[in-house]
């Protein structure tokens, strides 16, 4: 009986569990003045491909500097540079993959 309860609890937990992107990215960005999609389109404008965008984002998130930012000077002066991520490489990759899937252009144009 205890076993069954444990499984059910674990199952319901896994269903309600949030992804790395939702938990570690969206949670903060949601409340920000600049929405998360704006960052995506800025990266896209500068790095073009999936590989280029993800690589640039990874580098920035791990070690954010003014030189690497895609934001305008005005926004940087106002909000500053974020702190380096505490996510592991795998988690970061997972978050970025989801981020790409949500905002990518491929398959959305009509």
């Amino acid at each position, binding site marked *: 009986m205890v076993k069954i309860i444990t499984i059910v609890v674990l199952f319901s937990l896994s269903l309600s569990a949030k992804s790395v992107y939702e938990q570690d990215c969206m949670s903060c960005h949601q409340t920000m003045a600049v929405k998360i*999609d704006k960052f995506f*389109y800025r990266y*896209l*404008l*500068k*790095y*073009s*491909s*999936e*590989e*280029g*965008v993800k690589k640039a984002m990874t580098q920035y998130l791990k070690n954010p500097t003014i030189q690497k930012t895609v934001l305008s000077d005005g926004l940087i002066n106002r909000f500053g540079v974020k702190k380096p991520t505490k996510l592991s490489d795998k988690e970061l990759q997972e978050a970025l993959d989801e981020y790409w899937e949500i905002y990518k*252009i*491929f398959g*959305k*144009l*009509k």
Partner: protein
Amino acid sequence: MLKSWDINLRESEKKTLLSFLALYLFLMFVILLFVGVLYYVSQKEVMLQSKRMELSDLTNEHIAKLKELHVTFYKNKNYPRDERFNSAIYDSSLKQIFSTTKAKKINLYEDSYLEDGKIYFIKELESYYLGARYIAIEVDDAGIWKKKVYQDLAIYGSIVFMLLLLFGYFLLNILLQPMRNALALLDRFIKDTTHELSTPVNAIMSNIEMIDIDSLDEKLQKKIKRINIGARTVANLYQDLTYLMLSHKIVSHDEDVDVGLLVKERVEYFSLFLESKKIEFNIKAQEHITVHIDRKKFAKVVDNILSNAIKYNSVGGKIDVEVSSNVLSIEDTGRGIEQKNIKRMFERYSRFDPSVGGFGIGLSIVSMITKEYGLHVEIKSTVGVGTKVSISW
């Protein structure tokens, strides 16, 4: 006189000349084709160059629309379309983001190019709106330039080809000159020789005929016969050569000639030759078989075939002559001639057996006369067995 002796180009020489002409024309064609392709490519380049400015303007217009879409993408996902052109966008890894082009694959490494009647113009963006690093524009090629190029190629190509053909003709003449000279030299030599032979041959022949052979003793009779054979050989040769030189001036007196009688008469003429080589002669002739022909010319044909049959026969050999309604055949038991040489037998100066004298003009005369009268000559020969010459009419 010399000029009327047309150069008789032999088959092999004709073949060589034709091969030369074919090779020359082929080379010229390849060169012209190469030049034509170069011209086509250059004209295409000129056309693309002239289109580039216009296409660049269209591309810039499209980029402005992409920029607008990039900014409003969160609410608008409609790719900008223009009836003047189709377009496609690619990211920096050359992955297609979106396309309205007819072509499935576009070569992004080119600046502009033409394919399947469409002109493609490729530009790299400075800012990658919607992630697009490359933009390709596709427009229809009206093909006016192509029509003009084909027209130019047809006109100028045919003019140049004609000129080259003319040049080839002169080249061929230059090439032929040494051969013509050699043949002319040989012809002139024979003509001169013939001329010099005329008087002595006539003197010998008429004097021999005047000798009363029966009044001589046997030994002398034999000697005179030998002289007679020799004289007749020379006389034959002289007549052949004269015929070759004067054939165009000889007026034909065509009449119904009894073939059987004529052959018998000519055999009589050669009787001394037959006797000296101990050749057995058989004739099987149907009576009153006639051919409408010049007597002298027909005699020349028979003489030449008979003299060959005697000349190339073995001592103690046989000659069978048969005259039927439309064929005269003369068969010998001589050394025969190889199959590959039969075709060339009728060429002037063709000789295949150096051990027997001659100029190689006898059968050439036979060929001339039989052609003139539409007679058909057939030669069947087996080396070592004999030769059969049949003339049919």
